[in-house]
């Protein structure tokens, strides 16, 4: 299990290492492009190794001398401006054939004369605003200038500024067609490479600064600043006319370059997530040094201060390298190994630059390597950004997935809880209804049957009485069933149904019915229990009239009286003998009346008996329609 990430990590390192090796190979072959010796392979093209000259450093006696190539002014006269006039005889050429001179470096300002004719001029001599010593230069020598069969005299007038890498390197002379080929190849690798570096650094720097602006991650800020500052030096290689006069421009470039390196060191610490205070302080010192020392160096024309700054940076870099190595060995950071490789390359390049370029120990001019080596860090940052972005996207997706999962889970739980609650409520409702029906059966038809049983057990029982008791039981049962009908809060339907059920019996008793029931509005919350109680009250009233009143007509009326709350007024009136609860007849119906009162109370209604002037009795029910509680 654990080996899998390891192998993938190794594979990634291996890939990084391979890429770095290729780049390194490319960089190492860099100096060879600048090496004049290899370009002289063409038989017709000759390399010029030395010239005679007059060298005039500012403030000193001019001196004659023999100048071997490459010649670097800084090395011969550190910290001094100056002029020189160099001359050499060029080999005779075929008649009518144009020749050409190829200078690897020539500057800082220069005039090229052949046989007393000015062929090329780079800047004005002694004017520091231009610098021609940044790239190779080809000067065509037209055939008219040359005298067939005679050597031509080349005269170079140069001016150089302190610390500006002025001087002269690699002169090749030959037929124009041949030299042009060499130069074309040379050009391909000079300015475009610098321009590409500059563009890439600016782009990556811009990207990193953009990330820093949005995320405020010092890693990005550090790198972005470093990259933008690092671009300055590459940009300068493309510029023939700098934006500032020398030595100011040199100072600016040096500060940019130095702080670029210091910030890269700081970036390494951020990338590792390790910030040992001593190392942070060392880098800060190097940063301050790389600002202060170039100022000293360029204002005082003292190259050693700048060399000191570079040495300081190299030391800081070495310390960083140690930390990176520890992290790489501990294996806690996947970036540590690429960082180690890049750091190693940068350190070697830095030593190379200090020893060979700044100090000139081998007496040659060499191009600095550090700018190339540092570019590896750009690749590392790009890799980090890609890795972080991919990780973020992956995290975001997995977060989304887990969120969706959790939401689904919660929904399920909610639904389950809701279902359970609903089931519970339903069960409760069913249970309550069941208990109610049980109670109704027991109290209603049950008591009727008990009465019937006791009647049957009496010795002399009349069939009429039995029949009446059975009919009561049937009535009770039918009312219970009717109370369960789905009448949808419709009191009219309840009354109508009761009448429909009783009509045959009333007809049989010879009673006419005056039905004065108006359309009643729906009554919310009209419960089966309330319906049954009302039915029983009315049935009792009807039964009393059939049995005792001796009436011919029953008048039933129902109406709703608006109010707060609205009241239903029901009345059952007969035209019989007339009785009221306090009258003597009441004794016979006492139990029934008490039952009616109890039922009315149960549904919150009021019962009232009234003796009618024309004879007969009226039972009035006043039932306030309170909205269902809850």
């Amino acid at each position, binding site marked *: 299990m654990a080996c899998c990430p390891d192998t993938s990590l190794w594979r990634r390192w291996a890939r990084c290492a391979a890429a770095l090796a290729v780049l390194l190979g490319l960089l190492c072959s860099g100096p060879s492009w600048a090496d004049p010796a290899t370009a002289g392979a063409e038989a017709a093209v000759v390399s010029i190794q030395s010239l005679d000259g007059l060298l005039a450093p500012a403030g000193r006696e001019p001196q004659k001398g023999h100048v071997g190539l490459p010649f670097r002014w800084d090395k011969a006269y550190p910290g001094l401006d100056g002029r020189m006039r160099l001359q050499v005889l060029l080999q005779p050429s075929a008649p009518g054939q144009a020749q050409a001179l190829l200078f690897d470096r020539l500057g800082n300002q220069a005039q090229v004369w052949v046989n007393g004719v000015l062929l090329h001029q780079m800047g004005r001599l002694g004017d520091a605003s231009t610098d021609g010593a940044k790239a190779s230069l080809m000067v065509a020598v037209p055939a008219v200038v040359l005298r067939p069969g005679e050597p031509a005299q080349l005269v170079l007038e140069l001016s150089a500024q302190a610390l500006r890498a002025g001087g002269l390197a690699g002169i090749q002379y030959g037929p124009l067609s041949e030299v042009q080929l060499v130069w074309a190849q040379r050009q391909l690798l000079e300015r475009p490479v610098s321009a590409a570096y500059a563009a890439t650094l600016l782009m990556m720097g811009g990207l990193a600064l953009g990330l820093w602006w949005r995320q405020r991650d010092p890693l990005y800020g550090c790198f972005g600043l470093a990259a933008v500052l690092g671009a300055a030096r590459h940009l300068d290689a493309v510029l023939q006319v700098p934006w500032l006069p020398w030595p100011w421009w040199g100072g600016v470039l040096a500060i940019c370059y130095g702080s670029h390196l210091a910030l890269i060191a700081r970036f390494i610490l951020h990338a590792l997530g390790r910030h040992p205070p001593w190392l942070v302080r060392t880098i800060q010192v190097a940063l301050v040094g790389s600002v202060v020392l170039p100022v000293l160096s360029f204002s005082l024309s003292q190259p050693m201060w700048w060399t000191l700054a570079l040495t300081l940076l190299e030391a800081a870099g070495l310390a960083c390298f140690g930390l990176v190595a520890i992290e790489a060995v501990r294996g806690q950071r996947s970036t540590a190994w690429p960082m180690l490789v890049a750091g190693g390359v940068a350190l070697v390049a830095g030593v190379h630059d200090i020893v060979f370029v700044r100090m000139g120990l081998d007496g040659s001019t060499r191009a600095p390597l550090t700018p190339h080596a540092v570019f590896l860090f750009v690749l590392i940052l790009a890799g980090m950004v890609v890795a972080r972005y991919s990780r973020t996207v992956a995290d975001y997706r997995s977060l989304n997935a887990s969120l969706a999962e959790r939401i689904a889970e919660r929904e399920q739980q909610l639904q389950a809880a809701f279902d359970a609650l609903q089931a519970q409520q339903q069960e409760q409702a069913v249970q309550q209804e069941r208990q109610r029906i049980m109670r109704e059966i027991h109290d209603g038809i049950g008591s009727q049957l008990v009465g019937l049983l006791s009647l049957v057990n009496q010795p002399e029982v009349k069939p009429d009485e039995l029949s009446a008791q059975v009919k009561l039981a*049937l009535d009770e*049962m*039918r009312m219970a*069933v*009717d109370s*369960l*009908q*789905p*009448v949808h809060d*419709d009191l*009219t*339907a309840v*009354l*109508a*149904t*009761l*009448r*429909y059920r009783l*009509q045959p019996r009333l007809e049989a008793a010879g009673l006419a*019915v005056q*039905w004065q*029931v108006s*359309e009643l509005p729906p009554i919310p919350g009209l419960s089966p229990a309330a319906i049954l109680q009302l039915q029983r009250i009315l049935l009792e009233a009807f039964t009393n009239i059939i049995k005792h009143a001796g009436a011919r007509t029953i008048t039933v009326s129902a109406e709703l009286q608006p109010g707060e709350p609205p009241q239903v007024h029901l009345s059952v009136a007969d035209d019989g003998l007339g009785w009221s609860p306090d009258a003597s007849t009441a004794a016979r119906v006492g139990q029934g009346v008490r039952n009616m009162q109890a039922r009315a109370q149960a549904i919150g209604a009021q019962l009232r008996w009234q003796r009618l002037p024309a004879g007969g009795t009226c039972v009035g029910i006043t039932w306030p329609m309170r909205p269902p509680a809850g």
Partner: protein
Amino acid sequence: MTPISVALVEDNDRMRERFANVIRAEPSLHFAHGAATAHELLAWFADNPVQVLLVDLGLPDLSGLELIRRCVRLQPACAVLVITMFGDEATMLQAFEAGARGYLLKDGTESDLANHVLSLHAGGSPMTPIIARQLLLRWQADASPKPPAAVQPKGPQPDPLSPRESQVLDLVARGFTYPEIATRMSVSITTVQTHVRNIYGKLGVHNKTEAVYEARQHGLLP
């Protein structure tokens, strides 16, 4: 006058015997056949025309409503009456839709039963207030505009009620008897009963058009 021939399907033996006895005791009725299951009845019914068929809805082998549909197809002239429990209005409505012309209550008295059969055969049609109310609601729902078209599947609408029929239904629902309705509407009782029969008939027609519609939907009819 030849007695009215009556057949009966009822799975409860005692109940079947009771009905049979009532019918036998009534001189104007002739008890033709008593079946205990739907299939037994269908086998007999195919070859023996009767004038009245009493059907219990709770048969063990076939839904009573389905049995009514088949019998109505076999003998359209036969008046199918449903034997039902007291208060089972919802099932009664379905039975009317299936083609039944009336209903008998299981717990009626013997004389009630015979009278009902005779009355139904003579064209009388009882209607409880609850049935009337449910019919009113049904026709109101059909007649009222339904903005959300998706709520109800598109199908044939029952024939609309005439204003008279609506009035009859309304009065029945409010508890008035047929004679009272006749008085209020200034018509004869027979007219009221005709209205009621027509209302039931529209339910059955509704049922028939629905069957045709469904058959078309399923490609059984052109």
